[in-house]
């Protein structure tokens, strides 16, 4: 099997002689190529070789990530008692790797001759690359998410200004956000609007509170006839507010706040204003999603665990396809993608069906065609 990287200088090929795998590299291993190398090595390891030779004879350059990938592969192989050997590194590469020719780490352990789904349960590449125990803060870091609240508030103030300028009868706009379980106003066009929001938090009711909690929009067309929020409505009327439109803000599919638009004119918000408000709320939601605002560590961890489970199912399915079709990991991904697109199912559902088909072989090999 053969694979190539984004830069034409780098290429890699994996060959098997019996249960001895050789991964031969050519060209420069920059950080991007190193990622691909990690995938290639992992794919080779997933095929349970008795030994793995990394042939660097034709490598001209290895960046910072290369040694990390190689050392990860080494520890992964070491965990199952398989040897990693590095062949003929050039002086330059050897210097960068901090060693010369590598000797086997350990003797080969007797592997499983038959590869069932359990054996194909791939050792998690995540723990190779991202470390085995990740805190939610680590997750944010690896996901590259900004966490500075000032940056976020600045962006939200801009959303408020834009909404105020572009929605016809808007007299005030604010953004409410739940942080550490408490709803508060993080951006507002003026002091009256701040008070308006504060009154809703104090009474625990109002369109802003409802939109933030229930995650859909609330429109108080005329506060003179409004009955849904009896404690809050008189306070709003006292400040001269006649109409309110609150659109939910969401982060990671959770309602986390609201974009609130206030008017001193009843029935001032038309359908186009509601659409505009929804658009601004979506923009604000993207800002919040990027910043991970009030997605609690628990929620983030749950979301990540779900992603990990899905990834695991996909890994299993890829392993099964690799075994059946004798293809590499990328070929297996392509097969899965083709099946999923052709049948109009998600990749995850397709992967799950393939994993199940191993339990019930009478359903026939679904993944044979690569």
């Amino acid at each position, binding site marked *: 099997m053969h694979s190539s*990287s*984004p830069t034409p200088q780098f290429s890699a090929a994996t060959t098997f002689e019996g249960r001895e795998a050789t991964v031969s590299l050519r060209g420069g291993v920059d950080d*991007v190529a190193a990622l691909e190398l990690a995938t290639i090595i992992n794919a080779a390891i997933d095929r349970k070789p008795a030994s793995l030779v990394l042939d660097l004879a034709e490598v001209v350059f290895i960046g910072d990530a290369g040694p990390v990938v190689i050392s990860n592969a080494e520890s992964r192989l070491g965990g199952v008692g398989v040897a990693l050997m590095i062949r003929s590194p050039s002086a330059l590469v050897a210097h960068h790797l901090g060693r010369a020719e590598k000797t086997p780490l350990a003797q080969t352990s007797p592997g499983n001759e038959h590869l069932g789904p359990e054996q194909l349960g791939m050792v998690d590449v995540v723990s190779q690359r991202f470390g085995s125990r990740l805190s939610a803060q680590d997750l944010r870091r690896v996901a590259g998410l900004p966490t500075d609240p000032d940056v976020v508030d600045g962006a939200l103030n801009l959303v408020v200004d834009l909404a105020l300028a572009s929605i016809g009868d808007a007299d005030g706009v604010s953004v409410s956000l739940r942080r550490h379980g408490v709803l508060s106003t993080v951006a507002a066009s003026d002091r009256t609007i701040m008070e308006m929001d504060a009154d809703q938090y104090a009474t625990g009711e109002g369109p802003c509170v409802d939109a933030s909690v229930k995650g859909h929009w609330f429109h108080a067309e005329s506060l003179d006839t409004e009955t849904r929020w009896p404690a809050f409505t008189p306070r709003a009327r006292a400040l001269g507010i006649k109409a309110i439109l609150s659109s939910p803000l969401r982060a990671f599919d959770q309602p986390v706040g609201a974009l609130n638009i206030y008017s001193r004119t009843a029935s001032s918000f038309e359908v186009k204003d509601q659409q505009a408000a929804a658009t601004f709320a*979506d923009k604000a939601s993207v800002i919040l999603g990027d910043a*991970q605002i009030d997605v609690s560590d628990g929620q983030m961890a749950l979301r990540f665990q*779900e*992603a990990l489970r899905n990834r695991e199912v996909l890994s299993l399915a890829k392993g099964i396809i690799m075994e059946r079709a004798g293809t590499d990991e990328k070929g297996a991904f392509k097969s899965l993608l083709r099946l999923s697109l052709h049948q109009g199912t998600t990749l*995850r559902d397709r992967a799950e069906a393939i994993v199940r088909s191993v339990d019930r072989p009478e359903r026939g090999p679904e993944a044979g065609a690569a």
Partner: protein
Amino acid sequence: MIDPAMEARHVLDSYRQEAGLSHGELWLRYFQLGGMSTGFELEAYLSGALVPSPYDRDVIAHALNERFAELGVHHPVSYLAQFGGEDVTSGPR
């Protein structure tokens, strides 16, 4: 076949914005489809600062397309992978 290096910068990021996905959410989706790059790297791919491998490029494309499918839009992002002459992107739906 599209050369990922030649792909106009920001094209993928425009799709991301159109799909209403934050960088973090797209990264999670990419990650659960088997992507191996960090969020920083993914952002670099989207902004054109780094060129994704063809494989990464297709994982990102599919993460976006699955989101578009949820929104009822049929796979607007094309793939680099050739599927044996059969145009699966316009398959039965």
